[in-house]
């Protein structure tokens, strides 16, 4: 039972995502799906025309997608970045810190638990692509 949660205000992108190989052959697509082994930097020349990048998480313990998301945001991608697959509610905070603003989980996500977890940590130690001020900046701000 796939469950889509979006943390952005625009409309859901309807065009189906194509594989990275298909996209690179025919670059007029606006939605791409990346597997953990794909190089997200191959998309850098095309980021401005993309509306949706879906990153696959085949197993919750496969953390490659966290780096993929960070790399895409660091490169300036501003469209929807969707984590899709075996995603647990307890991972959503970290995904958002790595730039994901949509979650398509294979499991039902308990909204009450999600809301509680989302507001739990006021402080974060690292500077990441989510723009939150790390505590070292707040300490000396």
């Amino acid at each position, binding site marked *: 039972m796939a469950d889509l949660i979006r943390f952005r205000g625009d409309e859901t992108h309807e065009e189906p995502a194509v594989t990275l190989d298909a996209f690179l052959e025919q670059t007029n697509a606006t939605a791409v799906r990346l597997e953990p082994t794909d190089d997200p930097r191959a998309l850098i020349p095309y980021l401005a025309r993309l509306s949706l990048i879906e990153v696959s998480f085949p197993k919750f313990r*496969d953390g490659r997608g*966290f780096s993929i998301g960070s790399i895409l945001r*660091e490169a300036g991608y501003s469209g929807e970045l969707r984590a899709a697959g075996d995603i647990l509610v*307890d991972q959503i905070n*970290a995904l958002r810190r790595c730039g994901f603003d949509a979650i398509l989980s294979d499991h039902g996500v308990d909204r009450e638990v999600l809301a509680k*977890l989302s507001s739990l940590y006021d*402080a974060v130690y*690292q500077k990441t692509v989510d723009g939150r001020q790390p505590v070292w900046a707040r300490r*000396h701000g």
Partner: protein
Amino acid sequence: MYRYDDYDQSIVDARVEEFRDQTRRRLAGELSEDQFKPLRLMNGLYLQLHAYMLRVAIPYGTLSARQMHMLAHIARTYDKDYGHFTTRQNLQYNWIKLADAPDILALLATVQMHAIQTSGNCIRNISSDQYAGAAADEVEDPRPWAELLRQWSTFHPEFIFLPRKFKIAVIASEEDRSAVKLHDIGLQIHRNAAGEAGFRVFVGGGMGRTPMVAPVIRDFLPKAQLISYLEACLRVYNRFGRRDNLYKARIKILVHELGAEEYRRQVEEEFLHTSTLGLDAPAEEFARIAAGFAPPAFESGLSEEIDRSDPEFAAWLDRQVAAHKAPGYAIVNISLKPTDGIPGDASSAQIDLMADLAEAYSFDELRITHAQNVVLPHVRKSDLYAVWQKLDAAGLATPNLDLVGDIIACPGLDYCSLANARSIPLAQKIAGRFASLDRQRDLGELKIKISGCINACGHHHAGHIGILGVDKKGEENYQLSFGGSGAEDASLAKIIGPGFSEDGVVDAIDKAVGVYTQLRTHGERFLDTYRRVGEAPFKEAIYG
């Protein structure tokens, strides 16, 4: 010592709340054991053979008397009145009830402690030199960098589902008391030709079933770029480390398969990028952390004299006390290796006593060593006799540091669900065979390390004599290796021949030690003699 500010405290408190809710969901059946496992593992809670085991982080092995008292209190209240100090400077409780775990974490949080990332495929507790801030040979105190790394690695969102666990150690001297070359990343602060201090970065060391001594990936890294450089090291690993085989997932395999040169090239390329992202904390933040590690107010004009008229005290002094950088002070090593004891175990009463001694005699500081002992880092020489008397009365004054009796052993099959063989009874048998302290002193430095399975938590690859317990057709069998070292002369021990029963391995060590005493030249340690003459005479004596 570093003290938490409100931000640090809020993060640890939030984790207690998060874990309390996760435990509630598990106990209510909302989470299956499969779903709960990665959540509890991220918090140091393992399901062992008989009960849950909780591993508490002791960052860089440093703690205060108040923190130490809390460890004793938890052992007394929630466990069987003892705790086990580990080779990663942590403390483990072996008999924890799941329902109690959130309360234990809440108690730890009241003394600025936690169990965050003491397990799971993430960056684990940052370890360091137990003599930091006291050693005469250090470039500077490495612990402010370790604390910076503790904060950076805590819930780092990109690196919480790495291919495998990840261990980082930081030292600042040439003598390596932390086995940095056997870590996923080892950091050594040293000075370059211009006299500036920076990091030498070792990547890809480790033990386990494929032991490797780490190559140097960067000889000199400016200190201000530590975080952005490590982000590059970790990102390359997170993306390209193997995930197809649990046993090939550590970074050492990636570095080995790519070659150090190619791994270095990829890291440097990524570092060109990460160094532009503003990931490093500013100098004033480092200064804030470093202020927490300012040296204690050492007194000047103290006496260097020590009355050695009590021979037992003199024997302890010669073995357990190391040189301190401040005149009139000394570093005291407390052995957790009594002959008939369990390596690394301490009772609640002993933990309390060590805390009291730290408060009265060591500026409120204790250290845990990777060899499973405890250190009082700053003791006045004039107080050594009083400290010794109190340790002796509590069974904590065995003078065997780095001798045959100072054995490192993992919990083994007595506790651990991964083990193939028991480690503790074997350690006790070996210690019993060499019980004579005169004999131990005559044999000199001889580091024996025992692991109950191939995961090598007992560091057997780094033992002058290493022992690996295996399961051979349902029987416990022990493989014997020689020639390892976890120090600055790091090397991997080599298997000498077919394995032994528990008694057989004790006999074999006795024979090997006999070869050493025959062949040693003046001042040679067992390890030196073995390296000089090679394995043949040892093999001959054991199997001939």
